């Protein structure tokens, strides 16, 4: 009995191993794809950042990041990221709150307005803002024909245009997870507060808002981190006046063929991105944010 049990155990273990290797092999095609086309090239970039123009091992590329040309780009990037995040919160919080308070059917209908732009090409949406904001654009001509302004306002090829365009693109990234969190807040708490004599305003500030804060924080960090790496919208709506980090990386390569500088900038961007995402994950769990919020 014991003997045959051993045989069983051995063959089971062998089958288990075979099963494991078989399953691991199924992962292989996609894994190779990600490894060769993402991890390997990024690792190469990282490696390159450690060498100076003469091919000697040095921290030169990183020291140069503290030059004024680079730091001013850094400041612009953070400014844009900060502005876009704040405006997204100001617009996104009430929208998510409204969606969470609407009857489910109506909320579903309204969510389409958030999801559709979310999936529409960034390029198309940026182009739309170019049409709306340019000198002879739709907003300026409307304001002039209404007599509100005499001369067109400059809204494109500068910070204003960049921020407006980016807020439009980032808003769904804040609203969708926030809405998911708000939906899970039981209305019973607010009712209980009202029962105990709190007015609607007080119930909102003391009961609802604190419970929605984790979603808000996660959404804000996410929007901020996505802003740091943004390229298309500032390149088209900034008109060369808003130089963001990603554009600096781009011009280091295209204009100056300076791979050392570009790779150091890239590594810094990557490290910062991962730090913020790690923070989001710790606070909230990325999986809950995007994987299972529906």
């Amino acid at each position, binding site marked *: 009995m014991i003997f045959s049990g051993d045989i069983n155990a051995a063959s089971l273990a062998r089958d288990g191993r075979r099963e494991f290797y078989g399953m691991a092999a199924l992962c292989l095609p996609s894994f190779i794809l990600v490894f060769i086309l993402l991890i390997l090239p990024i690792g190469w970039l990282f490696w390159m950042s450690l060498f100076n123009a003469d091919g000697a091992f040095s921290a030169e590329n990183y020291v140069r990041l503290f030059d004024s040309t680079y730091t001013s780009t850094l400041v612009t990037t953070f400014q844009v990221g900060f502005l876009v995040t704040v405006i997204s919160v100001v617009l996104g919080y009430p929208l998510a709150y409204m969606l969470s308070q609407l009857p489910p059917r109506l909320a579903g209908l309204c969510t389409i307005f958030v999801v559709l732009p979310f999936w529409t090409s960034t390029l198309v949406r940026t182009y739309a803002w170019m049409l709306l904001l340019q000198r002879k654009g*739709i907003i300026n001509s409307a304001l002039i024909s209404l007599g509100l302004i005499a001369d067109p306002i400059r809204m494109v090829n500068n910070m204003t245009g960049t921020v407006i365009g980016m807020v439009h693109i980032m808003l769904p990234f804040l609203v969708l997870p926030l809405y998911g969190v708000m939906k899970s807040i039981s209305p019973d708490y607010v009712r209980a507060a009202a029962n105990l004599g709190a007015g609607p305003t007080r119930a909102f500030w003391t009961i609802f808002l604190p419970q929605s804060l984790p979603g808000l924080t996660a959404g804000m960090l996410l929007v901020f981190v996505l802003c740091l790496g943004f390229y298309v919208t500032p390149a088209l709506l900034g008109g060369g006046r808003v130089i963001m980090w990603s554009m600096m990386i781009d011009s280091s390569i295209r204009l100056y063929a300076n791979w050392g500088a570009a790779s150091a900038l890239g590594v810094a961007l990557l490290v910062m991105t991962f730090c913020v995402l790690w923070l989001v994950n710790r606070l909230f769990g990325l999986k809950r944010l995007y994987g299972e919020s529906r």
Partner: protein
Amino acid sequence: MELRCDRLWLYLLGGAILVFLAAPSVVVAVTSFSDSQFLTFPPETWSLRWYHAYADSIEWRAATFTSLKVAFLTTLIATPAGTAAAYSLRMLGTRFSGAVQAIYTMPMVVPVILIGISLFFMFARIGLNTTVTGVVLAHSMLAVPFVVITVGSGLANYDFAQETAARSLGAYRLKAFLTITLPQIRVPVITGALFAFLTSFDEVIVAIFISGGDSETLPRRMFTALREQIDPTIAAISTCLIIITGGILLAVQAFGFSGKRSRS
């Protein structure tokens, strides 16, 4: 919960923000039917002039065809690769899925500009820049996570006892998967395929760096054109893109699955 009048301000504010989100697409679509060189809203005279310009331009047609080809090939690669990965992640259980999932989230969280320059650098060494193959491979890598996530969430609700039953009755694993499991998870698989298509079809930044010449995709050509001047033809092209995106989302919705993209 019913609508309450004392919350009118909230609905007005929320409605205004929804208009802010939807208006740009509507404006592009309406102005694309304008007859004049300088797009006005609403158009003074209506015409299909810019749609004709789009259809008549050899360059725009070529870019559109390239984009469709690239997106189609990307879907063909990313869908089976992603489905296989989702299946094996489910079978392997939680022991490994944490680490492996981290790898599949990477294409979604690494700044796209970095993916663009690092691929440009690597492809320059192996001669894949400005080739369709290079763009298809890069887009497949970007699209795989969407397939893994959508199919993975489909498999999470699937009862594997059915596949085990088929295998205990003598079906080989592949046959059991193809005849029993796949038909039941077809909705998430098709959804994942549609997202893969859309991911490739809309992708700009990587294409800016690694496509060009014969492999120039539509978004890359649009980006280059927009940097120089605002060509009204782009309004017509944009409208077509909005319609394609809307159509795919409707198809996804019709299949009863709502997914989310986390990158732009």
